[in-house]
Structure formats: structure tokens, C-alpha cells
């Protein structure tokens, strides 16, 4: 199939969608705005299908691992959890009209596996941060000392014990968040938005084609 269908038309679709929705933000014309809201709904529906990529990729990867006798137990657990949840939940929703929010088994899977799993994986970082703070956090230069000092002040200022140790910790913390933090993060926001705008303009103009993936 020609490059027109494989490359230029998808690019045109991207540009047309971008301008259509940008126009909705900037123009106040009821018919146009209503059409744009319908467009937003359509794109939201289309975007929901992106999860198909993740489940297909996970299934392919882990079926291959089982076939090669690598991580058989772990991969089997993953596939069983994923497909059992999906099949049961979709059956109850599509055939019996029970929303996943109200489906008992699905909510138990969330409460018993997803929620504790997600929370615990991120909470392990607390240990790593503490260990890294002891082993690697050194005041080797003025900049590092400023970083260390402001980190220590914020940690003590935000904890009730800090105010008990020295009454000015919360005051200093407030000053640090209101002044240098605001200045620093505002700089990052300003420079970040310029970079993002440049990237998006390059995508619209066709110079950036990474989103198209592999192939011609």
C-alpha cells in the first residue's frame, strides 16, 4: 500500500484532530463546540481500546516464557489472574449487566491483589530512600549542601516532632516551599512547556515521526 495511506493520511488525521480540538478551546460557537464534545467522546472511546495492546503484549510474552520453560510458575500466575479477572468481569458485565464496580469477585480481586500489591511495591521505596540517604547523600559541595539542608529542614518541618525540636522548622519549611521551591519549579515548568511545545510543533510539521512506530 502506498505511503499516502501508511504515513501521510495518519499524519493528516493527527494534524486535523489537533487543530479541531485546539479550535474548540479558542472559539465559542455552539455548533462547533457541540461537535467537538462529540469528538472528545469518540476519541475517549477509541483511546479506551489501547488496553488491548497491554494485555496482548503481556499474554504473548508470558506464554512464550512458559513455552521456553522459563518462569513457568510466575507467568502462569500472571496469566491466570489477568484472564480470569477479565473473562469473569466481562461475562458479568456484557451478559448479565453487572458493572465491574458492583461485581463482588472483581472488587475482591482489587482489594486483595491490586491494591495491596501497588501500595507495597511503592512503599518498599521508603527503605531504599533511607538506605540511600545514609550511604550516598553527602554534602560534598555548596550545591549538595543546599540540597541536603533544604531536604532535612522540610523533613523536620513537615513532621510534628520538628516543631517540638525547634519552633522555627515549620517557618523555614514554609519559606523554602514558598520561595526557592516556587522559583525552581516555575523555571522547570517554563522550560518544560517550551520543550513540549517545540516537540508538538515538530510532530505537527512532520519532523518527528517516532509516534508512527516501525516500518515505512
Amino acid at each position, binding site marked *: 500500500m502506498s505511503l499516502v495511506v501508511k504515513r501521510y493520511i495518519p499524519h493528516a488525521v493527527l494534524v486535523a484532530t489537533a487543530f479541531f480540538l485546539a479550535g474548540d478551546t479558542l472559539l465559542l460557537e455552539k455548533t462547533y463546540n457541540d461537535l467537538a464534545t462529540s469528538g472528545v467522546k469518540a476519541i475517549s472511546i477509541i483511546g479506551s481500546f489501547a488496553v488491548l495492546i497491554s494485555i496482548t503484549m503481556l499474554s504473548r510474552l508470558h506464554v512464550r516464557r512458559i513455552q521456553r520453560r522459563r518462569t513457568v510458575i510466575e507467568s502462569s500466575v500472571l496469566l491466570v489472574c489477568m484472564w480470569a479477572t477479565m473473562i469473569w468481569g466481562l461475562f458479568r458485565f456484557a451478559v448479565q449487566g453487572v458493572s465491574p464496580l458492583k461485581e463482588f469477585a472483581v472488587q475482591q480481586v482489587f482489594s486483595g491483589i491490586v*491494591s495491596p500489591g501497588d501500595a507495597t511495591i511503592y*512503599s518498599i521505596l521508603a527503605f531504599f530512600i*533511607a538506605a540511600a540517604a545514609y550511604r550516598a547523600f553527602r554534602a560534598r559541595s555548596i550545591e549538595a549542601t543546599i540540597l541536603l539542608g533544604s531536604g532535612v529542614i522540610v523533613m523536620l518541618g513537615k513532621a510534628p516532632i520538628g516543631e517540638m525540636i525547634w519552633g522555627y522548622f515549620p517557618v523555614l519549611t514554609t519559606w523554602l*516551599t514558598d520561595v526557592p521551591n516556587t522559583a525552581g519549579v516555575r523555571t522547570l*515548568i517554563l522550560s518544560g512547556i517550551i520543550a513540549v511545545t517545540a516537540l508538538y510543533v515538530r510532530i505537527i510539521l512532520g519532523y518527528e515521526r517516532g509516534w508512527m512506530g516501525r516500518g515505512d
Partner: protein
Amino acid sequence: MDVRYMYLLVMIVVSIPLLKPMGLPLGTISVETTRMYQYIDKLPSRSIIVMIADQSPAAAAECQPAMVANIQHAVNKGHRVLFYASRTDAVPFIDDAMKVVLGATSDHPNYGKLYVNLGYIPEGELGLKGLAADVFFTGRDAYGKDLRAMEFFRDLPKKDASDWGLIIYYGASSVDWVVRQITDVYGCKTAGGVAAVLVTRMYPYYPHSIIGFQTGLRGAAEYEVLVKRPGEAAAGMDAQSLSHLAIVIMIIVGNIGYYASRRKPSGGG
């Protein structure tokens, strides 16, 4: 030294105040939390507060107590609350928060009059844009009930985000998109019950767009004090204090050890 001893130390330092609370006073309530409380307090009765649940189960430890305290405040003041989730794993937290404060979700007598849960709206910023333009964007709520039949929406003049009194974001990713699509377009101010990792990004928009926010578990504990509903957040502050102190001591000891070893004369002669 084996790093696992340090992990054990952290575990002990966090566990002891949980098992044997020390009862440390919370201290000064931060200006950001106070301003958020006062803003909600001064909203006219039956104002619409939109609560965006963007917390993953990881961020829920900090954001959920904040959400519960804010719902309690809204209930006390007679405000209307419109919930929605912008990520799939935040959906159950809306139900959980409603059950804690109201005791029920869709079966509550005031559901559909004062409280509505729209469930998950996909595509983040795009979904919020759609909801802001048309409050009936999803057509039905999270439980399948028709939104147009609900008393909640009956007296809204414009049926868009300009009818909203406040939008509160709960989560750990970013709040820029909420300010971009709601505050700057419709004038409805933003507030937050955010995880502490996000709080540094709130200050550039504070106080002109973001009127106030709760910083992690500490902010949630402060709000619980303000609404006089001590809950989960207040119970965790002792452990937070001791662990912060322990990490600060570890940093100081580590630096002392580093500089002491640098001063030692090198061997040989």
C-alpha cells in the same frame, strides 16, 4: 554494613509508634490547608464541589484520608459533591470514601440529589475537557443511573464547569491539566489533596489558581483537625515524625562518618 540492617531499623522505627502511639501534638496547621478549608467553608450552600480521584492504591494512603475529610466538610456545609475517577484503579476509592462518610453509595437517600459518582472517565485531560463542556458527558453515573433524571443537575444554569464552586484533585501525577482546562477556562478554582511527591508542583500555581491544598498525610491530618473528624491521617503522624527524625539522623551520621574517614591520614610511610 549489610543494608538489610538499615531496612530493619526503618521497619522498627515506623512500627513502634504505630503499636504504641506517643500522642505528639500535630502542631501548627499549614496556611495552604487553612486556606482550602476556609474557601470550602465560605462557598454558598449547595455549591458543587467536583472531586477528581486520580490516586493509585499507592497514593491512596495519603489522598484517601484527605478525600474523606473533604467529603465530611462538604456534608457539614450542605454542598453537592460530584465524583469521578481519572484512572481505572482509583474507581473503588470513591466508593470507599462515600461509605466511610455517608455509610452508603448509590443507595444513600441523598444520592442523586447531593452526591453523584460518575465513575471512570477515560483519557485524563481530554475526558475532563469533555466533562467541563457538558456535565452530562457520561450520560449515566458509575451505577448506570441516568444523569438527566437526577435532582443534582436540575437547577444548573449552564450545565458546564462554570456552575462548579471548586474542583479538588486527589493524586500523585500532576495538577497542571486541571488548572489548564478548568480554572483558566471556566474560572472555577482548583484545590488538592495530593500525595507529598506532587506538592512541590503545586506552589507555582498557588494561590492565584490553586487556592489551597493538603500536603500528603500531614495535610490530611490537619484537615481532619479542622473538620473535627480525627481519622487515619492523625493516627499515622507519630510514625511519620519518628521515621523522619531517624532518616535525618542517618544522613547526619553518614556525613560525619564520611568527613571523619576523609580526615584519617592514609597508611604507608
